[in-house]
């Protein structure tokens, strides 16, 4: 820049001083900035602290699990379909095909970090010694996944033979629902530890039998509700315990899916035939019918093998809430729905509404005692629309939206937050508490059904800001329980409640009855054995 020659000539002491002051124009402005910014910071912090002090939420520590040291635990894999393969990966074993496919996807799409996440997973010190599936192709895939340093697991066509093997300490069961209880019971009888997928059982009597078997045995039993490991749920539990929402009168949960995969229209393998599929071993206790590929691969669509929306997806939502509220089995259930979006011969509904009543539910509140008691849990599902409806826990003082993230809004008519609302410290349109364990993490979700599970906090969670597969953590907890003899977060008590609540919903749907539970005697009150037999769920 050119300087002013005339000005330089005329420069006296006064001008010099003035020019010096002008040169320091930044100082007063910075002073004003600092004062303003500090005042703004302090005001924001004070408001935040006042809210947080009032709420006093402490993100809970993850459940403590022990070390994985010692001899490897020898695991048998029973069922290597879609979920069985996922469970095996959570243990640290993937098929060469999956690894190659994921490598290719990661090259095409850098945000697809599934292979990297898998390779970085902690070693659980597990050896897969045996695999079993009714389909030859899957047996071989499972064997390939479990092969390490040329040591291949033994293939079994019949799970009973696998359970006889002294080389197996524990089994992971990811089979059709109607096999969960028979296989778990046989495994417990053989002294094997059990990790079994939901729904825990397919029939009412099995639920009692499995409960007794686990209670009378020393084995470690874990039911596959992996969201119990999700950090946001552990925090949500603290929010419930501190009664931040006030008395909860209504809980809304949903399933919203609109794709073939989400409606269980799975791929039918080209090699499927009576020669490659052990049909008798698939049918088990289901009615004897001739070989049917569709029934084998899409078993979730029929009551004979699956448990429908109630056992398959309601159980996720039910257990997500039960792990917060411990509300247990409902006093009564009504249910309605139908096959409205996939009229392809399936017998399980694809649109379903379940209403569970908890007449005595009360965990304290902000209003006078005696005014509030009772709660309704609603599960609303459609497989024909995927508009994302949130899971909401609605209390007198606030509403919590529950998922991989948590948000809590004060209620406009809250008693507890009345003053804070008046002082405009909180507002009904802004969350007064938001919990996002991934605020610095990096996510990538592929596919609509994957997004459905991720939003619900069912796919992964965060430990120290790093993304972790929640199924891996759930498995780790089970393996640690076996090694270090501690409890698990989804054992037989939780499993009994989950299965019985799902069965009551199924019975309500299929009989049209309001199905009631006798808490004292732990039996379904108003349904006869004949009625249960008529719908194949006795």
């Amino acid at each position, binding site marked *: *820049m050119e300087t002013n020659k005339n000005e330089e000539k005329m420069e006296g002491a006064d001008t010099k001083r003035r020019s010096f002051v002008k040169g320091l124009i930044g100082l007063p402005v910075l002073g004003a900035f600092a004062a303003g*910014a500090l005042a703004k910071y302090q005001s924001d912090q004070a408001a935040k602290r006042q809210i947080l002090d009032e709420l006093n939420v402490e993100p809970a520590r993850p459940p403590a699990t022990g070390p994985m040291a010692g001899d490897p635990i020898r695991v048998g894999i029973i069922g290597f379909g879609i979920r069985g393969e996922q469970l095996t990966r959570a243990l640290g074993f993937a098929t060469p095909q999956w690894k190659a496919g994921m490598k290719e996807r990661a090259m095409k799409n850098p945000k697809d970090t599934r292979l990297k996440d898998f390779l970085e997973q902690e070693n659980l010190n597990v050896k897969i010694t045996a695999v079993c599936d009714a389909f030859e192709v899957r047996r071989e895939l499972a064997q390939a996944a479990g092969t390490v340093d040329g040591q291949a697991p033994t293939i079994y066509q019949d799970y009973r033979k696998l359970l006889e093997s002294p080389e197996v300490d524990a089994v992971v069961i990811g089979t059709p629902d109607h096999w969960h209880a028979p296989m778990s019971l046989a495994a417990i009888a053989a002294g094997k530890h059990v990790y079994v997928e939901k729904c825990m059982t397919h029939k009412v009597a099995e639920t009692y039998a499995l409960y007794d078997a686990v209670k009378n045995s020393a084995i470690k039993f874990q039911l596959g509700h992996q969201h119990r490991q999700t950090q946001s749920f552990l925090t949500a539990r603290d929010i419930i315990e501190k009664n931040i929402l006030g008395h909860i009168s209504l809980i809304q949960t949903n399933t919203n899916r609109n794709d073939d995969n989400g409606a269980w229209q799975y791929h039918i393998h080209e090699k499927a035939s009576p020669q490659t599929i052990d049909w008798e071993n698939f049918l088990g206790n289901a009615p004897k019918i001739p070989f049917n590929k569709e029934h084998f691969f899409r078993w979730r669509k029929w009551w004979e093998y699956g448990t429908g929306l109630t056992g398959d997806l309601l159980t996720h939502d039910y257990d997500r809430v039960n792990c917060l509220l411990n509300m247990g089995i409902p006093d009564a259930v009504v249910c309605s729905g139908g096959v409205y979006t996939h009229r392809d011969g399936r017998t399980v509904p694809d649109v379903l509404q379940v209403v569970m009543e908890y007449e005595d539910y009360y965990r304290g509140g902000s209003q006078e005692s005696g005014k509030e008691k009772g709660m309704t849990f609603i599960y609303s599902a459609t497989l024909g629309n995927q508009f994302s409806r949130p899971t909401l826990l609605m209390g007198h003082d606030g509403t919590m939206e529950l998922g991989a993230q948590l948000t809590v809004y004060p209620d406009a008519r809250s008693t507890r937050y009345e003053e804070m609302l008046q002082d405009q410290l909180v507002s009904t349109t802004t969350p007064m508490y938001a919990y996002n364990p991934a605020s610095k993490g990096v996510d990538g979700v592929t596919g609509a059904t994957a997004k459905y599970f991720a939003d619900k906090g069912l796919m992964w969670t965060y430990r120290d800001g790093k993304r972790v597969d929640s199924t891996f953590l759930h498995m780790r907890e089970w393996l640690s329980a076996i090694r270090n003899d501690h409890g698990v977060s989804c054992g037989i008590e939780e499993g009994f409640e989950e299965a019985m609540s799902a069965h009551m919903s199924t019975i309500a749907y299929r009989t049209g009855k309001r199905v009631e539970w006798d808490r004292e005697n732990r039996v379904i009150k108003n349904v006869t054995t004949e009625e249960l037999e008529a719908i194949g769920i006795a």
Partner: protein
Amino acid sequence: MTNYTKGQEFFLVVLRLAIGWHFLYEGVVKLWNPNWSARGYLTDSAGPFKDLFYEMGSNPTVLSVVDTANVWGLILIGLGLLFGFMTRWAALGGIILLGFYFLSHPPLIDVKYALPSEGSYLFINKNLIELFALGVLMVFPSSQRWGLDGLLKRTYATA
């Protein structure tokens, strides 16, 4: 600065201080928030360069560099403009940062963003206007009289 009228000089200095203030506050707010990250913004990118910005936002190593560079870039540019110190460089730095913001979220006809915008824009948005304003400050400097640039030069020359 000789040839500026009083009005020209006033508005040039005020414009520089205002943009400096804005940059500084944007930087300081991010510095104060331990959970702040450009990830959400970058992965919401659209337009012709979205892949580049997506990569920046989804690679944790790159992201941590981007986050640090952004926060300190904003603060240093802000201080430079406020004090009139290395003002051309500060303005140039500001133009580069704003250029990145603009290119990551260009207000094109068929482009939609998840992050809400506080106004209505087509092709031109406030990032681009602030970028042009910094261009004006580069070609019409005001730090020789109103800033450390001039003060240091005079002190240095006298000494």
